[in-house]
């Protein structure tokens, strides 16, 4: 092994993701996975064979029940997250997601060069979300919105409760329930692609940064080099 000077970092524990954010994250993940699996089933139910009378079975009924139960969890969880974007810490705040400053775009450009094009240059490491990720999450929130609008729009006719009834106008605006279902179905693919890329990037950041990205959604901590506290203290997003 070649002998070289090794810089041993001193790391400091930073509480990045507060408990409500972590709770939201995993509840969201679980409900989306449930919604995708049940959604696929609703779109194209399995060819089950049974010698039972229909009266003793409720397979599609249960699958739809899980879809709607998960949908309610997903919806209220989403509302909660929007609320937390205004009262949570800096890393949870809405400014992380919506570009409001020049710096946001500068950082996005940097992430694009360093992490996507893999150009050499000053490595950029943000503590919370980087700007690129923030903007993608913003798109994700829009997809959440589309899914809630179309989903509750479809659901409204089967419900008497005022909350889903609030969405009864959606199918008529989108040109019928057929179209609404199609949009609902297409948007699902955004979620699937998002999940794949998201999980990959978590591995990636953990691997190249060594700050505990993977476990941060568990305990809430990231381990940040001491230098960051001195140098970038006022420069950080």
């Amino acid at each position, binding site marked *: 092994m070649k002998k070289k000077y*090794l810089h041993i970092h001193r790391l400091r524990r930073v509480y990045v993701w507060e408990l409500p954010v972590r709770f939201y994250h995993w509840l969201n993940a679980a409900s989306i996975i449930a919604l995708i699996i049940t959604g696929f089933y609703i779109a194209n139910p399995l060819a089950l064979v049974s010698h039972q009378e229909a009266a003793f079975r409720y*397979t599609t009924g249960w699958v739809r029940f899980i879809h709607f139960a998960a949908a309610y969890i997903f919806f209220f969880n989403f509302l909660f997250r929007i609320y937390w974007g205004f009262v949570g810490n800096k890393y949870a705040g809405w400014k992380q997601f919506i570009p409001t400053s020049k710096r946001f775009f500068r950082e996005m450009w940097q992430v694009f060069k360093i992490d996507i094009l*893999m150009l050499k240059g000053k490595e950029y490491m943000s503590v919370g979300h980087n700007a690129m990720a923030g903007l993608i999450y913003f798109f994700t929130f829009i997809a959440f919105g589309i899914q809630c609008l179309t989903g509750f729009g479809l659901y409204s006719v*089967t419900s008497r409760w005022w909350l889903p009834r609030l969405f009864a106008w959606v199918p008529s605006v989108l040109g019928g329930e057929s179209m609404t279902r199609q949009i609902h179905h297409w948007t699902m693919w955004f979620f699937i692609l998002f999940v794949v890329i998201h999980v990959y990037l978590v591995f990636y950041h953990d691997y190249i940064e060594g700050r505990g990205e993977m476990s941060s959604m568990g305990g809430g901590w990231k381990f940040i080099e001491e230098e960051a506290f001195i140098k970038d203290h006022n420069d950080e997003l």
Partner: protein
Amino acid sequence: MQQPTYYEEVLRKGYSRRDFLKFATMMAAFMGLEGTAIGQVAKALETRRRLPVIWLHFQECTCCSESFIRSSHPIVADILLDQISLDYTETLMAASGFQAEAAMRDTIKRYNGEYILCVEGSVPMEADGVYCMIGGKTAMQVLEEAAEGAKAIIAWGSCACSGCVQAAKPNPTSATPIHKLVKGKPIIKVPGCPPIGEVMAGVIVHLVTFDRIPELDNLGRPKAFYSKRVHDTCYRRPFYDAGLYVESFDDENAKKGYCLYKMGCKGPVTYNACGVTKWNGGTSFPIQSGHGCIGCSEENYWDNGRLYERASSFAGFGIESTADKIGAIALGATTAALLGHAVMTNVRKHKMIYDLEEEGRADEQQLNAEP
């Protein structure tokens, strides 16, 4: 000339009072009214003078008229249509040519603000409307003239409500539904290809009985007939909930009468009364005959994917590609891109990763060093 009441017409046609009351009862039931309303319906038909009606035909196949004259009670065709259409309807009136045109002008003038305008068919707007001309006038001109003094407009069938097949892509004649052409008049949409005869009769009887338009939903359809999906009133629904589906039209499941969802049944996205009222005097409806619903009363049903498949093709990506196929391709491409990125990370960021590992190893050794 004083218009006769509906009851007078019924008697004149040789029906008994008993027939008349049966008819009133049936109509009340179709409209979803409670028992006490039967008297109200009968009373209204006894005392109200018949509504003057103009019934126009544009781009259509006359299946709405056909459906109407075949609704289950003969009085519907005999009295409602025969009499109401007397004023003007191209297909059924006795008069023709100038005589007919004169009859229509006459009704428009004499019953200004009182008559009901029924429109069957869409209006072609392309090429100045030459695709549908009647008596030397374009459909649009005829419509404008007749709509002017109408009390209310009934748009019969999917043609008049959303354009139906002639408005399917690429809609060469620019077939346009009525509500996009006439503003400022109450329009009742009665979609379907055709609508159920009893539903059509129900709308007219409602107008006569209550002297106002029935309660409409946000798309302008009468709630009494269009507030439920076919799926919610379908007798095969228990099979849907149980997860038992017909997989192909001649399989064992089809014989057992399982749900037609996977055969492309559009019942879950279609608002109509087929499951309740049925067709041809309550004989059957498509699903009862083993065929999925094609969603004929929904907007753009010709363009909303194929009739015998659930998955609909992705607009703009060719006929064969469904959302799931495109999604799967995108997923494959994404995975490949991520793999490439992972490889590139290890190449381009080699030093960074190497340093991190070294640092970690050094720490590990220091921690485990013998004291």
